[in-house]
């Protein structure tokens, strides 16, 4: 248990520093959210209609940012060997790494998401739901992203490969979260979308580590 806690502390600290950490991730997110109105045009009605969806897609893209280094650094400097050589199952180690990634970048993004959406013209009442969706979605993004990061270990330009592997897996959470948000905005029942998003995140947390562990073992041997 103490090994798990000490690993979580380390992974969070490493994710906090990786590629500039949460500041750069949130900055990138803010950048994408600022570019959108410039492309779509300044009419408030048109912007408000796409605000939540735009904020949601920008969030998915921003979560990709520092993913490629999640396993790559440990693989290159030999730390992954030592992390594997332990009583702690590799599956659990991979899950902790993703959890650290989520704490360091997913949580700050979840705080920034409602602000960005409201800035784009979404109604203030949406803020709590956007926060909840971003929190659950971010968890799914971190664990699915981990699969891509582990699969692209040892590949040249692994970062691009990670994005290509992971983006299709991001489709369901983007649909579920976007669906819940637009249903809420239209005054329709939105709980179903959020529940599906939560279920998808739970499945990613449960199954992602199995895939990551297999990919890590394969990369090492």
């Amino acid at each position, binding site marked *: 248990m103490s090994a798990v806690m000490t690993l979580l502390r380390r992974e969070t*600290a490493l994710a906090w520093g990786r590629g500039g950490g949460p500041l750069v991730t949130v900055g990138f997110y803010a950048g994408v959210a600022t570019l959108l109105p410039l492309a779509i045009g300044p009419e408030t009605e048109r912007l408000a209609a796409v605000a939540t969806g735009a904020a949601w897609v920008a969030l998915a893209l921003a979560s990709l940012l520092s993913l490629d280094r999640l396993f790559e*650094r440990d693989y290159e*400097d*030999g730390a992954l*060997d030592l992390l*594997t050589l*332990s*009583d702690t199952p590799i599956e659990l180690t991979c899950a902790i790494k993703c959890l650290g990634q989520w704490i360091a970048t997913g949580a700050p993004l979840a705080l920034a998401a409602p602000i960005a959406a409201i800035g784009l013209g979404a109604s203030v009442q949406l803020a709590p739901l956007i926060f909840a969706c971003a929190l659950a979605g971010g968890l799914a993004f971190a664990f699915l992203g981990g699969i891509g990061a582990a699969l692209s270990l040892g590949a040249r330009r692994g970062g691009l490969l990670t994005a290509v592997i992971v983006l299709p897996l991001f489709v369901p959470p983007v649909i579920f979260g976007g669906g819940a948000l637009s249903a809420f905005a239209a005054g329709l029942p939105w709980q179903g979308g959020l529940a599906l998003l939560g279920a998808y995140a739970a499945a990613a947390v449960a199954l992602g580590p199995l895939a990551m562990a297999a990919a890590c073992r394969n990369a090492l041997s």
Partner: protein
Amino acid sequence: MIAGLSIRALAIRRGGRLLFSDLSLDLKPGQACALTGPNGSGKTSLLRAVAGLVRAEAGEIAFGGGEAEAARGAGLHFIGHQDGLKPARTALEELRFWTEWAGGTAGQARAAADELELVPLLDLEVRRLSAGQRRRLALARLLAAPRPLWLLDEPLSPLDARWRGRFAEIMADHLARSGLILAAVHDPLPGATRSLEIPA
């Protein structure tokens, strides 16, 4: 736990090339074996196979009873070419982490740092350390979280003459406490009770 190391008829294939086959070795507590052989003969691969990081083509590796996976998880230390240290973290953070990961305590980490004269370096980022200092920081794990089997891949190469001598004493202490050492070396391994040459 590890009560011995026995390798039977081991063959390892890497990238389509058979590195060696029919390799056998028995190591009992208190023994150290020096693995020698030219570059690329498979010394590192053998160490990685013992650590369970590389799958063997044929043969078996046992640790004197008990399940191999559990024996590896709690019974061996692996010090490879790469030391697994993050350049941007301080020496203290890295030593603490790897000690706790291997089941040691902060107090043991401190004692190991003392023994390897790392205390003045602990506040520095790993990137500021020299190759020999980094290696000493990696070797500190061996002392901070005691485990019976040490797998060492050219442990002495970055160390200066004084530290080679000191590490020879540390290895002798480990063997005296019924430890086992399997080390890939190019120079003679001090205190080795036997050697195994892997042919090219």
